[in-house]
């Protein structure tokens, strides 16, 4: 029997008892649908992340934070006291902050051409020139590279500049982000004894919120953040230790020197991350969630595979005569086996085509609805919740066919084993 004939016969056999086949196919459809949605969700969010961070490929900075925090979670029992390490521990220890010495260390590393630091800057409120005071918190100044701009651009790190989020436009009574560029904003910073000082800054950009959480609050320039931090420290009794939330080290030829700098940082008890590393961490979380959700879909498929076994066992039972006849007329065991496993594959193909199609349609329609300009998730710049990953879709298709084939082997083996004489015996 030719393969084409096997396939055709298998297809027409599955269509023989339509209701039974349809019910079995529905179980597969549910599994395929769920898998398509979960993998599409993961693909969509990862594509969004890629798109948002894609523009910063030429960014040549390594972001440095103290390593203690990361280590604390991975430690197995209390760490041994090391007197040498203790000598290096300074005021930043335990607070997750970098000390001035750390920053000097970073500056002293090979390949580092410049270091910007992130200071903790507290503000009381901001005030528009026309009046009106608003509660506010600064975003990190070093996050400027991660922001999406509706208008303008990132603040000059050494100038007194700031960006505002898109929904702040109403302070200036406009909808057009371009109109607020060049406007001034007054930042009121508190000092240690509770008095506030005003700093006048220029608005140079309007940001859209991104999935990384950047751009929902004003982003100050590095100089502005430092100025505000200085005001915060005014009136402090005694010596206030210099502490930084993080530092951004500009590296010459990042691609080549990335590993060397990271190792040097690790030796100093510091942790260096490039933008790409941060994306990778973010994507790893998304992937993990996707896999967990897909796990549930796989359970649905597993249940469906028993439906295939059941359906085909019934079919083999009903068609005992027919199998006996085909074997008597010279069909080999292998061909009988392939005929019945092909029926299982047909059920798998029908289920996966319908399920994947429904999944894609549902995914894109829902995504379009949720992330539309006025949709529930419309506030996120460039967000898409559902993406087409042809590789994943192909993988799902093949996986389902494989599962269907495996489910078909038991009934197919049973059909192949039938004795033609027994099968044709008249009752």
């Amino acid at each position, binding site marked *: *029997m030719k393969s084409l004939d096997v396939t055709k016969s298998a297809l027409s056999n599955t269509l023989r008892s339509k209701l039974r086949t349809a019910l079995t196919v529905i179980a597969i459809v549910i599994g395929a649908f769920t898998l398509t949605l979960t993998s599409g969700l993961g693909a969509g969010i990862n594509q969004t992340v890629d798109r948002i961070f894609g523009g910063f490929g030429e960014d040549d900075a390594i972001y440095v934070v103290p390593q203690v925090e990361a280590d604390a979670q991975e430690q197995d029992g209390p760490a041994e006291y090391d007197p040498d390490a203790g000598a290096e521990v300074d005021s930043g220890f335990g607070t997750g902050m970098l000390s001035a010495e750390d920053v000097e260390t970073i500056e002293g590393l090979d390949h580092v051409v410049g270091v910007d630091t992130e200071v903790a800057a507290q503000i009381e409120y901001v005030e528009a020139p026309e009046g009106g005071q608003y509660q506010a918190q600064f975003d990190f100044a070093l996050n400027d590279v991660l922001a999406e701009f509706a208008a303008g651009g990132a603040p000059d790190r050494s100038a007194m500049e700031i960006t505002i989020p898109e929904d702040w436009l109403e302070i200036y009574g406009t909808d057009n982000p371009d109109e607020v560029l060049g406007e001034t904003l007054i930042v009121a910073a508190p000092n240690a004894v509770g008095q506030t000082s005003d700093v006048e800054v220029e608005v140079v950009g309007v940001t859209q919120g991104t999935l990384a959480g950047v751009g929902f609050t004003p982003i100050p320039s590095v100089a502005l953040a430092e100025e505000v931090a200085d005001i915060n420290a005014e009136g402090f009794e005694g010596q206030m230790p210099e502490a930084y939330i993080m530092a951004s080290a500009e590296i010459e030829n990042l691609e080549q020197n990335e590993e060397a700098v990271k190792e040097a940082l690790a030796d100093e008890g510091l942790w260096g991350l490039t933008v790409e590393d941060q994306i990778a961490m973010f994507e790893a979380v998304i992937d993990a969630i996707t896999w967990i959700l897909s796990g549930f879909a796989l359970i649905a498929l597993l249940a469906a595979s028993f439906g295939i076994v059941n359906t085909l066992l019934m079919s083999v039972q009903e068609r005992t005569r*027919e199998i006996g*006849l085909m*074997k008597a007329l*010279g069909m080999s*065991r292998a061909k009988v086996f392939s005929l019945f496993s092909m029926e299982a594959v047909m059920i798998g193909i029908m289920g996966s085509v319908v399920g994947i199609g429904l999944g894609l349609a549902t995914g894109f329609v829902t995504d379009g609805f949720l992330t539309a300009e006025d949709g529930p998730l419309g506030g996120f710049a460039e967000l898409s919740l559902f993406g087409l990953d042809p590789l994943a879709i192909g993988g799902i298709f093949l996986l389902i066919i494989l599962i269907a084939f495996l489910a078909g082997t038991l009934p197919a083996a049973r059909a192949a084993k039938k004795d*033609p*004489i027994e099968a*044709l015996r008249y009752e």
Partner: protein
Amino acid sequence: MSTPVLETENLVKVYGRGPAQFHALKGLTFEIHRGESVAIVGKSGSGKSTLMHLLALLDEPTSGVVALDGRPVSKLKPKTVSALRNETFGFVFQQFFLNPNQTVLENVTLPLKIAGVSKSERDKRGMDALEQLKMADKAKNKATDLSGGQKQRVCIARALINNPEVLFADEPTGNLDSATSETVEDILLNLQRDHGITLVVVTHDEDLASKCQRRLIMQDGEIVDEQVGVKDSASHKAPVTAGHSGPATRRRRRILPFGKGAAR
């Protein structure tokens, strides 16, 4: 004399084990020659169906040899045996075994489909076979829409489609009324006479048995009698099932020198 198309030597088939053992066949040795028509006759339980299954290579003997065209088949692989059945044999069953979901033409061409013949070639040969049995106008009908006689003609067309050397018919008239039986018998014997197909019939039907050139009469797993020569069924009803005590019979011999039917 040509090689017998089928021959057996000391063929034994035992079912079960130990005290429950049942000797279905107790050492049969005979030959069937090319172009001959042979009826295997006997009461139910005499072993005639078992014998046909062994001859048709559907089952394996407990001991003894079945040879096809002088070649013993017991040593062949299952796949080769399947292919041999497909190419060499045609089967006609009492219960027809037509697939009710398929058309007459699809049913008829099943052996060719199994053999891997292309669709156009299958349909052409299928129509030829149906033409031969005057069933061409029913080609597109579902197999369930036919009368018993028509079904058996479709069954014969299916058995003929691969140009078999041997046609096995297991009670081909068992489910038919006497008028229809007559037609089917004539078709089968014409095929044997005009096309040189070896015909092996297992039957209760005296009429059919008497039209065959040779009758092997079985009882309790042995061939107890053998009758040679076509009888005129209209005037003379041969007592085929009880013929072992009849006068004009020969005891079976180890080798039966029957070659006239094979001359074709």
